[in-house]
């Protein structure tokens, strides 16, 4: 793959990006800034400590655990054990939509719960207050489950949230109480929190309910958090195809569905980074294979549906999937045909998340746009280079501190859904069974890949490439727009969406068209400034 558009010399750009850093910082950053080659993917330094002071996009372990993975389930009371801020900042800011089946169904999404830890709790311990808080939450709401999230001071003062949870679970009797040691300092980014969340959900929820689930093609949707209603669109498509969604981890999900998830016959993974642990653990314990799919992009959605049908190997399902695709695609194509002349040849940069920076490239490709540089905020090498590099990833001190659950096959519930031979056959057909090929194989030769991009690097990248659109998050939004470049938020979607599936793709095309062709970008200079600039230029030419 060579770029159709002219890309600046990437090695010069790399020098520009690290030139200003102190020597040690430059040396470290240079390993995270690589020039892509999709054929022989180079190694990217990822999931390592951020240089203090560099201005990073990254957040903390708590954000990954509570904010990302646990936050979207509507009927868990999520109590944050710590000072007030951590719970406050994660309060409704991730746009995890949820749709209770009836108005009386439990839904705590709009609530913010905290133990509001005070100095005396830090000095004398906060476990007592935590237990009171759990009791009060139970008395007020009688929830099915209460989850406890540890913030930084909790780990340091030695509060045992797990013991407190066990004690209260026993005391309450009909409420599942469990804790997470997701203190902000664990690991090097949100990623540690994802892993901790996966462990907790697997240990305390999955497998609690063995009620059989009706349906011929039963799967779980992993790593989909229903931001802007993404899960609703995927649910719509599944329903149309006759695919039964047992549980979603965790957009628009419930405790009951997650407890029942091991009744499914396939796990499909969207956000590999945040949930791959769950896929592996469920395979080992219950024999459910996982498969990487992508519902961002219309073509990718069609491809993912075909893969799912292929997995189940059922002729009727395959036919139905083709019918659905044939029904959905013309609407999408019509919009592409309308918009593409206005977006063709434009360029994009994506620096976001642990999965989105990869998958949103599909949507830009569908619009005829080129991704010139991309990188993740908190991904690991496998998300860049593909899971085949997993055996070669060095486990450093920060990763070692995150528990790896020792999972074994469940003596009663383990039931391999496919034989080894069947799985091999599916892999040979191109299905990413228990695999993920990563971002870089899809990107152009000589495009830039930057992990954990700093503020300085992103400003320089924009100056050097002058992209037509930049994708990142809220902290970057107005910085980049001040430079005259529209920024599409890929965490919150700028309060739009959904962007998944067929209808989502159409939403995205329209949003990008609106953004890159918006008249406002031509209005930045006042007429008198323009006149002065033109006069200056005329003088210079003369």
């Amino acid at each position, binding site marked *: 793959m060579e770029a159709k558009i002219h890309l600046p010399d990437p090695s010069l750009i790399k020098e520009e990006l690290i030139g200003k850093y102190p020597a040690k910082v430059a040396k470290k950053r240079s390993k995270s800034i690589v020039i892509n080659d999709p054929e022989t993917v180079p190694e990217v330094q990822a999931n390592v400590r951020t240089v203090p002071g560099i201005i990073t996009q990254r957040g903390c372990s708590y954000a990954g655990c509570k904010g990302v993975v646990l936050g979207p389930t509507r009927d868990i009371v999520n109590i944050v054990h710590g000072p007030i801020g951590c719970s406050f900042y994660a309060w409704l800011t991730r746009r995890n939509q949820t749709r209770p089946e009836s108005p009386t169904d439990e839904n705590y999404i709009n609530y913010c719960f905290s133990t509001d830890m005070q100095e005396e709790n830090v000095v004398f311990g906060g476990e007592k207050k935590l237990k009171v808080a759990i009791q009060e939450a139970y008395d007020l709401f009688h929830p099915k489950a209460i989850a406890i999230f540890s913030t930084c*001071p909790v780990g340091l003062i030695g509060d045992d949230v797990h013991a407190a949870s066990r004690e209260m679970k026993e005391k309450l009797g009909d409420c599942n109480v469990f804790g997470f040691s997701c203190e902000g300092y664990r690991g090097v980014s949100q990623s540690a929190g994802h892993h901790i969340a996966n462990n907790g959900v697997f240990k305390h929820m999955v497998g609690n309910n063995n009620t059989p689930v009706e349906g011929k093609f039963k799967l779980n949707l992993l790593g989909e958090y229903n931001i802007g209603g993404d899960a609703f669109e995927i649910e719509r498509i599944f329903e149309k195809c006759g695919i039964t969604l047992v549980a979603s981890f965790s957009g628009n999900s419930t405790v009951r569905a997650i407890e029942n998830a091991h009744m499914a016959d396939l796990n499909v993974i969207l956000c590999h980074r945040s949930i791959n642990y769950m896929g592996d653990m469920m395979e080992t314990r219950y024999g459910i294979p996982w498969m990487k799919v992508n519902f961002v992009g219309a073509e990718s959605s069609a491809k993912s549906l075909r893969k799912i049908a292929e997995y189940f190997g059922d002729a009727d399902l395959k036919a139905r999937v083709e019918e659905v695709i044939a029904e959905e695609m013309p609407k999408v194509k019509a919009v592409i045909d309308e918009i593409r002349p206005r977006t063709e040849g434009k360029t994009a940069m994506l620096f976001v998340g642990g999965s989105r920076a990869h998958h949103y490239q599909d949507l830009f490709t569908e619009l005829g746009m080129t991704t010139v540089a991309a990188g993740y905020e908190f991904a690991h090498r496998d998300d860049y280079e593909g899971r085949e590099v997993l055996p070669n990833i060095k486990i450093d001190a920060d990763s070692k501190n995150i528990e790896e659950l020792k999972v074994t096959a469940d003596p009663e519930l383990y039931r391999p859904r496919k034989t080894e031979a069947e799985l091999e056959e599916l892999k040979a057909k191109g299905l990413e069974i228990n695999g993920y090929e990563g971002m870089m194989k899809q990107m152009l030769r000589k495009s830039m890949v930057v992990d954990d991009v700093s503020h300085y690097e992103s400003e320089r990248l924009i100056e050097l490439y002058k992209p037509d659109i930049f994708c990142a998050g809220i902290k970057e939004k107005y*910085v980049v727009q001040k430079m005259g470049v529209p920024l599409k938020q890929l965490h919150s979607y700028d309060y739009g969406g959904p962007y998944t599936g067929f209808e989502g793709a159409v939403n995205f095309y329209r949003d990008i068209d609106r953004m890159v062709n918006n008249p406002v970008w031509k209005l930045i200079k006042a007429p008198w400034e323009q006149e002065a600039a033109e006069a200056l230029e005329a003088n210079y030419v003369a």
Partner: protein
Amino acid sequence: MEREGLTINPAKTCQPIGAMYAALGIHGCLPHSHGSQGCCSYHRSTLTRHYKEPVMAATSSFTEGASVFGGQANLLQSIETIFAVYDPEVIAVHSTCLSETIGDDLQQITKKASDDGKIPEGKYVIYASTPSFVGSHVTGYANMVSGMAEQFAVSTGAKTEQINIVAGWMEPSDMREIKDIAKAMGAKILLFPDTSDVLDAPQTGKHEFYPKGGVTIDGLKSSGDSKCSLALGCISAEPAAIALDKKCKVPFETVDMPIGLSATDRFVMALSKAAGVKVPAEITAARGRLVDVMADMEQYLHGKKVALFGDPDQLIPLTEFLLDLGMKPTHIVSGTPGMRFEKRMQEILERAPYANFKNGLGADMFLLHQWIKNEPVDLLIGNTYGKYIARDEQVPFVRFGFPILDRIGHSYFPNVGYMGGLRLVEKILGVLMDRQDQEALEEKFELVM
């Protein structure tokens, strides 16, 4: 049900975000969060959502190792990286619950940075202690403002005609308005912090990492020679005025933040007295315009019950203003603790013996919602999170305070001064009269109101 352990839907957040906001009001300053990465990320995100502007700040990026062995190495590395890459005039470091719990001493670490030559000539590193388990975002703001006064102010022995105005937590639009009022009065003031022209920067096609606004370091240094200080707010501003008095013998007076008629009157009088200037006719006329509207529209305001939540220095004068408008402040909640706040609020509420007021631990929006369910109100005033109560209870809602995540205007149009009072009345009337229009029967639908 009385709760002792559980806070539900807080009416406050934590100290460090206030310190970050205050530090953005120094020109050429990069705020720095000494703690885990998440703190800095969350604070930047919240401030960005509120202002829809770049909010630059750095973090010490603590990992487990730093949490065990102390964060000194991380902060020293930060200081080195920041001066090399971002070249600020000053780095304003604030602590977090993490660095406070492990006992990092910011004074000692910044001294070491200086001794090790990590702070370039003519550049500064200041600090404030802002553990998240004490106070609220408001006291965090106060601590950083005190820090900037204490650490920059110099007393040369020669007093000047300058008057320090310590801004309590207010919007850039409010700070601009305070400067305009002082200018109209001919008073020579130094306002700090000052986030105008920082968090309301124009679109120019270029990102100014350090926008043109903010109090300068020379300005802050000169505050020690000012003849006096006016602190706008007893919780968020007064501590800095006290610090200046202690360090440089600058006498101070504390007035309520000038929100609404009476508080603005007291501010104008205090400034006039301090600066030895007469109140000019244009200020009196501005006042007259506000009183005129209050008189003309009293029928739509009189006796209306209001629930409000937010921060002390805003709630005190706002409650007073509602009373001046003939309205009934019925339920008032603030998560910010403090005896000073309670006492001042009780003084104001002597005119409203019926009012429910609670602040500090347990004073959250869940409690406010219960109060509203027990005794319904005609109007809700507070930050964006109020929209869930407003929707549930079908109450007209005016957004006011921090954070406002779903509307614009707060950073551009002031709430302080007589103009700010006029804007508040306009907003309150807007939602009340819209409601009247929506609910009016066909035959009662009025053209002229």
